[in-house]
């Protein structure tokens, strides 16, 4: 362990090492680089839209919404579909002449 006084001296000297510090200068071509960057950022609306849509948060949310709508529509229609009544079946059968034929009907047709 070093002498406490000596350590304190070193600490103080180090804390004062920023005295008379000069401001660092930026690259002289900074403005040219900024202009190039600005031009690069002027993207079309659609390219920005694609970037926005392809964000995981956006695309996953859209998929989740689509799944929820599909599920809701599916369960809604399933609960509404009730079995057709006897009357409706008979009307349908008579309209398309689907009633079961009997032996009597066959003999009448031959005459």
């Amino acid at each position, binding site marked *: *362990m*070093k002498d406490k006084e000596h*350590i*304190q001296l*070193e*600490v103080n*000297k*180090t*804390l004062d*090492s*920023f*005295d*008379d*510090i*000069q*401001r*660092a*200068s*930026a*690259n002289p071509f*900074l*403005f040219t*680089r*900024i202009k190039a*960057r*600005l031009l690069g*950022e002027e993207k079309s609306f659609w390219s920005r839209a694609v970037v926005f849509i392809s964000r995981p948060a956006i695309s996953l949310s859209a998929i989740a919404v689509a799944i929820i709508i599909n599920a809701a529509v599916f369960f809604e229609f399933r609960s509404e579909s009730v079995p057709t009544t006897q009357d409706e079946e008979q009307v349908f059968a008579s309209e398309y002449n689907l009633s079961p034929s009997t032996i009597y009907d066959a003999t009448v047709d031959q005459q």
Partner: protein
Amino acid sequence: MDEQILIEKLKQGDEAAFKQVVETWQNMVYNTALGILQNAEDAEDVAQEVFVQAYQSVKTFKAESKFSTWLYRITISKALDHLRRKKRKKRFAYVQSLFGTENQTIIEQPDFHHPGVVLDNKERAAILFKAIDHLPENQKVAFSLHKLEGLSYQEISEVMKTTLSSVESLMHRAKNNLKKWLEKYYGRG
């Protein structure tokens, strides 16, 4: 050109005005970013981002504060974001190296030498920068603005949107933390 006229022209998208804005404040922005990031390339990158954002959002600038104060705020916000991203990447690389998924070794950051430091103080200043790197964000910002940019506590309070007493407290804690770190550093050697 008067600052107010310059800002008005910048709001109208005048390129000559933008060039003058960059030339007037580029060293201030770069030096502030350099003090926080301690890396010349990162500081230049952030300086570019700052002026791009200033150009794009100058219409939101209200003359309630000085233009330089507004630029300081953008610079600090961008520099801290950059620093957080860098630290996140470093942590991720460290985890990867632990699990052996990547065969890369983590390279220790070399000592940072600020180009404006007097030659005699070069080595000590590098140690002080190392100590500053261990400070909490707001202490680091306050200390850097005061020591590297020469801002008064009042000016720092305007930049950081806080009270004068808060800045005084931040600086006091920053100096104490730096002292502790340096005492450990010199006591070890």
